[in-house]
């Protein structure tokens, strides 16, 4: 069997064993369960599928999820770029600690982030207490969802843009300066086009993560149907009501959105690599 799939012979042992373990484990843990979801979805039939999805509550949840994810992705694209820029170009005290702290959302469990953000932005919280007198309610509104998704997505943009910014050659910027461009002009017309693929990749990664996010959102969202109810929560509600058909249909749609984004991310990364020859 090894001879059949191996393209180039190798004296190293263990190909059959490791490939066998890898494929068996991957199939048991990931592929077969995902296939079960697909089988369930196929069992619904075309009309059953759309009947489960095209209800006002489900459509509202999709609107809330996509809208807040998009908003959080855009905030992260702007501030993530700024943070990456400051980390790469400027020196300041505590630089290393700040750099390490950027990964906090990767390391902090989402439920912990969720209750911490809620405590901060609630009416009696440190930040909520400042904003609410100004008439800005964050916790238990869609705005709260945006805050949680911004927290979750930030490292994706910073960590995608940072290495590209680091490897940027100074020569083009020098040439722009010699030719009389101001810094802002140089940034907009020389630097930004060079890092655009990476920035778009980071944005898409953050957006994709935000679509599926559950833990950090449900505490701060208020979870009002039609207003601040996200799709992952709706899936859990359907499952708890044993409405497997509904959960399957919504879940399949979400999964298709995720795979479309995965494809987009792969294409963007190919673009980035082509641009930077790495």
């Amino acid at each position: 069997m090894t001879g059949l799939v191996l393209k180039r012979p190798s004296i190293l042992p263990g190909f059959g064993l490791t490939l066998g373990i890898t494929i068996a484990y991957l199939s048991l843990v990931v592929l077969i369960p995902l296939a079960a979801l697909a089988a369930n979805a196929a069992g619904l039939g075309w009309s059953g599928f759309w009947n489960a999805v095209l209800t006002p509550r489900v459509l509202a949840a999709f609107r809330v999820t996509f809208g807040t994810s998009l908003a959080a992705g855009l905030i992260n694209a702007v501030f993530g770029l700024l943070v990456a820029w400051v980390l790469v170009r400027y020196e300041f005290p505590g630089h290393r600690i700040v750099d390490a702290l950027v990964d906090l959302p990767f390391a902090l469990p989402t439920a912990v982030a969720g209750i911490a953000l809620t405590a901060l932005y609630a009416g009696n919280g440190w930040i909520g207490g400042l904003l609410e007198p100004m008439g800005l309610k964050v916790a238990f509104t869609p705005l709260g969802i945006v805050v949680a998704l911004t927290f979750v997505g930030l490292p994706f943009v910073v960590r995608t843009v940072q290495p590209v910014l680091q490897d940027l050659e100074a020569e083009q910027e020098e040439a722009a300066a010699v030719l009389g461009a101001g810094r802002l002009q140089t940034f907009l017309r020389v630097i930004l086009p060079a890092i655009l693929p990476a920035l778009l990749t980071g944005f898409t990664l953050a957006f994709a993560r935000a679509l599926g996010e559950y833990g950090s959102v449900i505490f701060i969202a208020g979870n009002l149907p039609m207003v601040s109810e996200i799709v992952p929560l709706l899936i859990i509600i359907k499952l708890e009501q044993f409405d497997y058909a509904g959960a399957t249909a919504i879940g399949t749609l979400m999964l298709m959105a995720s795979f479309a984004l995965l494809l987009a991310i792969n294409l963007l990364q190919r673009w980035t690599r082509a641009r930077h020859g790495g």
Partner: protein
Amino acid sequence: MAVEASLDTAQDAGRLPARPAPRPPARPATGERPAIRLALTGIALAFLVVFLFLPLVAVFAQALAGGWQTYLEALQEPDAQAAIRLTLLTAAIAVPLNCVFGICAAWCIARFEFTGKSLLTTLIDLPFSVSPVISGMVYVLLFGLHGLLGPWLREHDIQIVFALPGIVLATIFVTFPFVARELIPLMQEQGSEEEEAALVMGASGWQTFLWVTLPKIRWGLLYGVLLCNARAMGEFGAVAVVSGHIRGETTTMPLHVEILYNEYNMVAAFAVASLLALLALVTLTAKALLEWRYADELAATRRH
């Protein structure tokens, strides 16, 4: 000698006034003005303080709001202890399994050329693009009471969903790619010449792996294990779907935090949450140390 020395001194003395006075280095054409630098740094840091630092501080502030006594009592409560034990047990099963899988996957992908390799690499990364809730749901659809295998499992009295096996499976699913995606690029960069040399000199496959490969990948492996463990202990969405929330039995630490929070038992919720926040801080510190100290022995994307 003496004359030369004195000549030198004289010349030096003569030259001194001509030496240009120290001047601040000219601003390079590709830098920003100091005021703009300061403003950009200020905005970036303010953003990070509000979005990252304050939530972290809030966890500990809320946990200790009732004093150390209450904090420690909240952690010693039997349900909290059970949640801590379940979390440790889950990670103790899921992390080593994913570790073995990660090494196997990296060995066959980084060391051999075979048909379908890029498809396999994409499939390994797949769990990262699936919503945690869906990761849990697929097991409910498969093993749940009304799931595909539900009736058969009930006949044989096997419980997977709403029990430890389901929690472990969901955790494995969401932490599946961590070790593999650290090791694959690392082992691809390192190449297999040393392994080939060891084999030619008569080492067995196992000996080669233990004495040649493992020492080369140990820091990358540790890096992957750190991230895998942090996620395994902190996973919420996937586990929430399969756990059934049976208090003291199928609640991991993050789920216990949710239960306490929904009961408005804030101090206890934040006390348990503070343990998870500590885990996150330890993970971040260890990760940063690895990136600084063993940068050469991590995959290129991890070097700073």
